């Protein structure tokens, strides 16, 4: 196994406010998030010589945001992609540095995902003409992410007896986590019954099974361990990464079953051997919550429980703060705000540093109460290893394992 384990790190993280009305451009937001990440790392703009970003025709390219910050590139690339791009671009950043192309790479995502190009598919996205491969689905009123993913969950329910009640616990856990997060858009804790009583969007998904369209920008900075030694924070060392691993027949993944199988089935065999660990060694997970069930599907596919037992796993208390292996401790896409995955990597970096930005008065100094009652702490004790499970869709995913 060819591995770059511990040779690269994430040294800086930053984000804008999460809102439903940014009232500014994706350029302005990207610049703010990148600037914060550079300052967080203890770097200067001139130290950043690489940039990667991802988008779906809804954002600003690297050339203009870099100029705003006075950055001159030795390497940059704008990539088409949504969820699961963060982890993949971390791997590409490592590769660019390893190849000698550049030294330090800022990765960003910026979107007005509610006020401009709604991620849920209404407005501008719904009005796009239908051509090519889209003809196989969109004319049937199947266009949004929820509509594209729901038959996967339905088939999982059929095959394994998974229930709406079980996956509702993902929302319950993430709302608990968001109640400890000053940045979160939805800080109120919800119950299983709240999820089940919320209106149907596309069966089997209720409104509260769905994530929260948000305006925001996010950024992380990747550099070599050697370079990280003199920087501000304890680095988050990258142990393993798998980027946009896919199932067969990506043109129409329904053709290759079982459709309840997701890309983690393949990605796990790349990322765990690189890191030299097993799921049992992971303290905190960041399983992408575009929907409650996407968190569940990935956790079981990566082996945190047996295939088919994801419903039991997410409803057992394991994934909540105070449980054995909390998932998405920021509240993430369901409650904090939708970022196309970057925020879940940011959160795990902060968990590894021990400086999660909760309501503890001295949180930024790494002093926490570990009181998980509402409005207090969300730092997990003694986090050694975190893992992100990035989701683009059932057939494409990424993974990232980090340690402190």
């Amino acid at each position, binding site marked *: 196994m060819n591995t770059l384990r511990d040779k690269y790190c994430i040294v800086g993280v930053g984000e804008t406010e999460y809102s439903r009305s940014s009232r500014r451009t994706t350029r302005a937001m990207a610049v703010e998030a990148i600037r914060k990440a550079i300052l967080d790392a203890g770097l200067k703009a001139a130290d950043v010589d690489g940039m990667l970003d991802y988008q779906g025709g809804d954002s600003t390219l690297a050339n203009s945001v870099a100029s705003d910050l006075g950055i001159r590139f030795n390497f940059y690339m704008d990539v088409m992609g949504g969820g699961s791009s963060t982890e993949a671009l971390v791997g590409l950043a490592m590769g660019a540095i390893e190849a000698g192309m550049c030294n330090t790479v800022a990765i960003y995502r910026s979107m007005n995902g509610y006020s401009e190009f709604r991620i849920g598919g209404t407005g501008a996205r719904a009005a796009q003409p239908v*051509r090519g491969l889209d*003809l196989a689905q969109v004319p049937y009123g*199947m266009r949004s992410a929820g509509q594209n993913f729901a*038959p996967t969950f339905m*088939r999982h329910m059929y095959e394994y007896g998974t*229930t709406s009640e079980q996956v509702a616990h993902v929302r319950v856990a993430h709302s608990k986590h968001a109640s400890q997060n000053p940045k979160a858009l939805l800080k109120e804790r919800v119950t299983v019954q709240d999820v089940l009583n919320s*209106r149907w969007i596309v069966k089997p998904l209720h409104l509260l099974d769905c994530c929260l369209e948000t305006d925001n920008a996010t950024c992380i900075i990747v550099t070599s361990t050697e370079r990280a030694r003199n920087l501000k924070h304890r680095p988050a060392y990258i142990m393993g990464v798998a980027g946009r691993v896919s199932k067969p027949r990506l043109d129409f993944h329904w053709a290759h079953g079982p459709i309840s199988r997701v890309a983690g089935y393949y990605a796990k065999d790349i990322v765990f051997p690189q890191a030299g660990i097993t799921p049992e060694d992971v303290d905190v997970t960041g399983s992408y919550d575009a929907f409650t069930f996407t968190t569940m599907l990935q956790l079981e596919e990566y082996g945190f429980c047996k295939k088919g037992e994801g419903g039991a796993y997410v409803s057992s208390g394991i994934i909540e703060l105070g449980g054995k292996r909390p998932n998405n401790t920021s509240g993430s896409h369901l409650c904090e705000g939708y970022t196309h995955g970057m925020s879940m990597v940011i959160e795990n970096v902060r968990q590894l540093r021990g400086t999660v930005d909760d309501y503890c008065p001295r949180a930024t100094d790494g002093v926490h109460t570990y009181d998980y009652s509402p409005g207090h702490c969300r730092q997990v004790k003694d986090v050694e290893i975190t893992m992100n499970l990035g989701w683009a869709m059932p057939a494409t995913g990424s993974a990232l394992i980090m340690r402190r």
Partner: protein
Amino acid sequence: MPQPVQYRGMALIVPDNDSEWKEFYEHARAHRLVVRKCNACGLMRYPPTHACPWCMDLGWTWQEVSGRGTIYSYEIVAHAIQPGFKALTPYAVVLIELDEQRGKPTADEALRVIANLVQPDFTPEPEANVAIGKRVRVVFQDLADHMALPQFTLTEEPAQGRLWRLPG
């Protein structure tokens, strides 16, 4: 070049140079459901792809299929995204497994098609009648002189395998 077909507020665009879909929809307009069959290995595939996903051969012919199959999975859209679908809610989107080539070339593969489950007048089949395992057949919804959409409707045949629908 044919004008875009307007359907429920969407522009469906199938230009003359659409080497994957143009003939597919011409067959559909003649009420034939066709898939591509590889000239080399004989396996059929949907949606239309340029090369064979199993042997990479570029040779293919259109092959008409029976249009009979079974509901493999489904969803019920309660909140429509596209404005033209709002009046139809709740409507079913179904993933149909066709009878031809089930479990080939590997046990997990099949010819599967996305469509709506409709009544004879192309309005949505009531939700209570939608279930995994139910048998269906293709019907064609004519949209223009050169285009029809394959849709599926329930048949009287007994269910295939375990019949299941979302509880509640």
